[in-house]
């Protein structure tokens, strides 16, 4: 409880300075269509996004970040904003991965990340899937996934990830690690919360209207 409260006040403090910062999310999905959608949704949440098409490419990217901090980017990863070396060397704050992918699945990727001895083992991982399979969900959560989201994703699903992102930044600021060592009961609670929060997310909510001033003439 005490740790929880400390975390919350730290989160509140960092939240202000976070307004300026942009989280860097690594999005993993084998479908170009899904990657485009993920990228847009994440950028809508003010995140910098790097999209890769497979678990192997994701690990390659993470390794390369680790060992070549200041070097310019690997050309296999595509980035949403301009290719500045600074962004390519940016630490990953969150990994979002599709579950069903050919070759290395999202689950395999999750296991590899969480089981590694590199700094990125503490990066929060979110698994997404179009299939609602409870055993799959609990498997991922037990392996250390922060959330398991169901496709099709809505903007609200990603906005709900903000606390996880903030948590990871607080960790890197404080150099403490609060994300591991949750007992089984916590995972079960988390799963219930995820399912509940997903259901809540699905109910109609006031849309964030954006004007569509398509003043550009169609060529």
């Amino acid at each position, binding site marked *: 409880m005490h740790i929880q409260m400390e975390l919350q006040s730290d989160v509140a403090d960092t939240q202000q300075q976070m307004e300026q910062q942009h989280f860097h999310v690594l999005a993993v999905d084998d479908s170009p269509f899904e990657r485009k959608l993920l990228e847009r949704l994440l950028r809508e949440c003010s995140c910098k996004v790097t999209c890769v098409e497979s678990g192997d490419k994701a690990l390659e990217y993470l390794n390369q970040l680790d060992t070549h901090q200041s070097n310019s980017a690997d050309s296999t990863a595509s980035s949403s904003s301009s290719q500045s070396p600074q962004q390519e060397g940016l630490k990953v704050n969150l990994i979002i991965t599709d579950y069903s992918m050919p070759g290395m699945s999202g689950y395999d990727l999750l296991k590899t990340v969480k089981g590694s001895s590199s700094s990125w083992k503490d990066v929060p991982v979110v698994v997404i899937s179009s299939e609602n399979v409870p055993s799959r969900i609990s498997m991922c959560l037990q392996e250390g996934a922060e959330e398991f989201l169901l496709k*099709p994703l809505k903007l609200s699903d990603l906005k709900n990830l903000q606390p996880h992102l903030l948590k990871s930044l607080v960790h890197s600021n404080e150099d403490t690690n609060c994300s591991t060592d949750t007992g089984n009961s916590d995972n079960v609670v988390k799963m219930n919360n995820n399912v509940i929060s997903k259901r809540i997310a699905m109910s109609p909510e006031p849309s964030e209207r954006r004007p569509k001033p398509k003043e550009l003439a169609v060529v």
Partner: protein
Amino acid sequence: MEVGQMQRRLIEYTKSLFMEGILDDQFLQLQQLQDESNPDFVVEVVSLFFQDAEKLLNDITRALDQQSVDFPKVDAHVHQLKGSSASVGAQRVKNGCIAFRNFCEEQNVDGSLRCLQQIKQEYYHVKNKLEALFRLEQQIVAAGGSVPMMELSF
């Protein structure tokens, strides 16, 4: 036709697509992601969906044409099509895919072929409708108007 009329026509047309179950709420989600900095987002995403879908439908057709059908492979393609059609809001295509997967599980070739036909029909139907919708939008913009936002409640 003046801009106001065109805008009303667009709204009515879009509404009808929802009423007929051709599109669902997920399409509205996509529209909400379109703004000044991403003015063509919906068209871009839908175009990707069209490319994806047509390739998958071809792959499925070829796979079902084999002497010995590789059902796990067909199922994987259908799964992908189901995912992208769901993400774009193409409800009838998505539902067709759900039905298709049952036939795959049963390894039922005839059922699968019939289902594929059905899905193809639904796909071309939604493609035509969406292309018509985008044309309406273009007309409005060309006439100097702005594309009206869909209301979530109707």
